[in-house]
């Protein structure tokens, strides 16, 4: 599977000179916690809700401060055509929770999050455990349907009297 196929959410971006209160408003309205910072079509950074708090509010920046003063740059990226297994390596290497997915020209396509991978892992785990769980709950030892219960046999004493 490719990274492009694992994207679950739309991506949202702002300009580097946007005010941080605008970025916060866009996050609230769009429901995303990280924005791509795009300058003339080029991805230059990522700003997260955590950045706004730790680098903005905590340092008493004015709400009109520019986004590029609190963003992370250069952004951690991964090509959309990369294998999804490479994303695990990239997350580990970069130590981040979000990777900006880019095309061959380096243009932003969307944001891949650790949560996306966890949701996919959980779904895969559910798929492989379903047959096992079914076997444990209703053992049938490979038969297509469980054997019929012989009531006469069940009533017969185990030890002849």
């Amino acid at each position, binding site marked *: 599977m490719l990274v492009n196929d694992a*994207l*679950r*959410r*739309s*991506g*949202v*971006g*702002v300009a580097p000179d946007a005010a941080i209160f*605008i970025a916060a*408003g*866009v996050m*609230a*309205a*769009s*429901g995303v916690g990280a*924005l*791509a910072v*795009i300058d003339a*079509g080029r991805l230059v950074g990522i700003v997260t809700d955590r950045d706004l708090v730790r680098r903005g509010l905590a340092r008493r920046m004015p709400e009109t401060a520019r986004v590029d003063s609190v963003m992370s740059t250069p952004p951690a990226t991964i090509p959309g055509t990369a294998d999804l297994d490479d994303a695990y390596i990239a997350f580990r290497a970069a130590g981040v929770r979000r990777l900006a997915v880019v095309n061959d020209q380096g243009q*932003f*396509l*969307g944001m891949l999050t650790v949560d996306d991978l966890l949701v996919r892992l959980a779904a895969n785990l559910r798929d492989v455990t379903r047959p096992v769980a079914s076997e444990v709950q209703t053992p049938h030892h490979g038969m297509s349907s469980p054997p019929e219960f012989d009531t006469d046999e069940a009533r017969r004493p185990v030890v002849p009297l």
Partner: protein
Amino acid sequence: MEAKVGDRIVIKGHHIGEPDRDCEVLEVHGESGGPPYLVRWGDSGHESLFFPGPDAAVQQLHRPETR
């Protein structure tokens, strides 16, 4: 995805109880109606670039037929 200026994009909520969100396309920056789009968010009126994913769907603005 293809969109035109004035179209509405709806983004489905990802969690139970999370509302759908919507925005209006103000500018089309891609080729042939493709993304990214400059949009205005319905909730706040803020503008941003939008890169649609599988959670987004376009509701096209009704336009009268031209002859």
